[in-house]
């Protein structure tokens, strides 16, 4: 009930359908957060923006997913030295987002943890990349991060990373263990911080989608679509139906590619190399079919402002549909094999469990959330075109362990193959893209797309024609990384790679 008044006070937000922008006073900021939490909503993203020579000098924004809509609360910060009220008690995931906002903009929350998050040794504490001028890069150096120590008899520390043994992204994990058992894990991320948000401000408004697609290359379609959704909302661009159908096709193909890769890697981590061989072959077959029909093996350049840069002839569409049907039936066979294999079952079941209650409290989101009973999927909850026509099915489990995250992937591969084929069979004719007007009608637009990991958000702001003032990209990994610290507690260290892989979170999308 309490939420109704916030919704009714909000203005229409450009970008994601069913979005509202709510300007709040400092004394209301926490009230909105509290009402959203009471309604079962979640914090999706939190970011700060500086406005040099303007009043207020900065804004902090919090985007909530609640009631099937997107509510963006906007808090003015008149004095950059003033600390705004942190949201970490209601939403634990806010803690790192606030630390990142502090590193990048110098706008601080009142949370007790003042340690830097994305800033390592490359720039000084009093420099802030998103408030001009940019810092001067320092020579390669390593800083001394204040990890939280666990004291006790027989406790020792194991430090892993940033460079890992496999072909994976870099990050640091500090385990406190007794024997083989994990008492505590503390993550340290930020190694692949590339200054993406600063880079956005140097690009033309109509070029930002290329960078957005590379925030996390495995979720390129999701990010590029979110960017374009924001931009198209700001400029009042109507995307042609054929382009929307092709975007959704690309998004589902991206989901299947990633899930196939993960299912193989998870089998391998459980000692079942057969799984890796089979799934990586299936993935390669599909990837080649995508390359042959859409012209890109990975769809990093498929979504462009106003539409798409890919097309499908009828014959190509039929070919792709056949490959998808085959993929789906092969995956069903492999699912039965994984289920039957005692060794695999044994490793998956119970490992890295996140109970639904904990998942809700910590804000676990996306695929991993759905494996812990959090029944949220934007394609289902607030379907945007063309998802309103093809009605995706929610894939959910409640066990919250590696087995559940594997099961959700199996179900989603099948569902996405079905959706992709439905899109292919009803592909509307017409233009591939609409021109995007140069003039911006709304200065702020927010796009949100359900990528394979979960919802990705892009908040785009333009204050001068054709220019980007601020572009914030948010990956669901922000929510889920802290949950891994809980998921591994009480597990043995050798199970960490399996548990970590079952989440398969993004480093690049998080480190920005």
């Amino acid at each position, binding site marked *: 009930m309490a939420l109704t008044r916030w919704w009714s006070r909000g203005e229409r937000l450009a970008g994601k359908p069913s979005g509202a922008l709510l300007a709040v006073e400092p004394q209301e900021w926490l009230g909105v957060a509290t009402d959203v939490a009471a309604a079962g909503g979640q914090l999706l993203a939190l970011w700060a923006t500086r406005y040099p020579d303007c009043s207020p000098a900065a804004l902090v924004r919090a985007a909530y997913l609640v009631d099937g809509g997107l509510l963006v609360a906007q808090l003015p910060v008149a004095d950059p030295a003033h600390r705004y009220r942190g949201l970490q008690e209601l939403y634990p995931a806010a803690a790192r987002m606030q630390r990142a906002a502090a590193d990048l903009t110098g706008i601080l929350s009142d949370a007790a943890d003042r340690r830097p998050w994305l800033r390592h040794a490359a720039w000084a504490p009093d420099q802030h990349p998103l408030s001009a001028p940019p810092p001067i890069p320092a020579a390669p150096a390593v800083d001394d991060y204040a990890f939280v120590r666990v004291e006790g008899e027989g406790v020792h520390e194991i430090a892993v990373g940033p460079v890992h043994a496999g072909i994976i992204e870099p990050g640091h994990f500090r385990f406190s263990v007794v024997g083989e058992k994990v008492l505590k894990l503390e993550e340290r991320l930020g190694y*692949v911080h590339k200054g993406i948000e600063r880079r956005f401000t140097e690009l033309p408004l109509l070029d930002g989608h290329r960078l957005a697609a590379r925030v996390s290359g495995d979720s390129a379609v999701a990010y590029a679509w979110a960017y374009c959704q924001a931009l198209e909302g700001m400029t009042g661009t109507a995307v042609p139906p054929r382009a929307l159908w092709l975007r959704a096709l690309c998004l589902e193909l991206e989901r299947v590619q990633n899930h196939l890769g993960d299912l193989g890697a998870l089998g391998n981590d459980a000692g079942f190399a057969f799984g890796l061989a089979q799934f990586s072959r299936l993935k390669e077959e599909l990837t080649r079919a995508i390359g042959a029909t859409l012209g890109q093996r990975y769809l990093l350049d498929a979504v462009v402002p106003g539409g798409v840069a890919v097309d499908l002839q009828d014959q190509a569409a039929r070919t792709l549909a056949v490959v998808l049907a085959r993929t789906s039936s092969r995956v069903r066979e492999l699912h039965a094999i994984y289920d039957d294999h005692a060794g695999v079952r044994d490793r998956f079941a119970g490992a890295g469990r996140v109970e639904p209650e904990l998942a809700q409290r910590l804000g676990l989101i996306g695929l991993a959330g759905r494996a812990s009973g959090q029944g949220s999927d934007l394609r289902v909850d607030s379907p945007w075109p063309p998802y309103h026509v093809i009605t995706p099915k929610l894939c959910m489990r409640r066990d919250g362990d590696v087995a559940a995250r594997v099961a959700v992937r199996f179900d989603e591969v099948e569902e996405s193959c079905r959706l992709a084929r439905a899109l292919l069979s009803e592909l509307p004719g017409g233009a591939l893209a609409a021109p995007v007007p140069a003039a911006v009608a709304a200065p702020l637009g927010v796009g949100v797309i359900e990528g394979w990991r979960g919802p990705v958000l892009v908040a785009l702001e333009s204050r001068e024609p054709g220019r980007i003032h601020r572009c914030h990209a948010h990956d669901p990994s922000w929510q889920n990384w802290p949950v891994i610290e809980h998921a591994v507690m009480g597990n043995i260290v050798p199970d960490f790679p399996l548990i970590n892989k079952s989440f398969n979170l993004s480093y690049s999308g998080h480190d920005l």
Partner: protein
Amino acid sequence: MLKTLRTIAGVGIVSESPPEPDDELRLRDALQAQIQSVLGRALAIRAVDSGSCNGCELEIHALNNPIYNIEGLGIRFVASPRHADLLLVTGPVSWNMAAALKRTYEAMPDPKLVVAVGDCGCDGGVFGRSYACAGPVSAILPVDVAVPGCPPSPQRLLQAILTAIRPRRA
């Protein structure tokens, strides 16, 4: 178990012959022989992500699938730089990774080769040089071969690796 065996038998051997060589590179089919004659054993590669968007990693992973079957060519990925002949580096080098990348390189035994992967590895790509990015891998390490693409295909990656190990002609 039966299902597993049936799937193995049903699928059969899917490994392809090595990619068609780029004429310029004159690799022909003798890829494995080349590795053997240069190294006398398998080529050991250590992959390091120095700031990648993870796109290049997807294609590096593909090298291990049964279709490209890189192990069959006598190339394997190793966990430690101390066992590596070649360092495969992705990403524009983020300043936060620069020290770790240097350390990894220094831990490799001589002689060592470096292949910079992707548009980012070649020149910084869309991320460029900035307060957060040193840019190309060559800004931090001596690079032997750089392979563009965003991401480069598995074939191009293989060609780059093989070009790097092939003794340079005068």
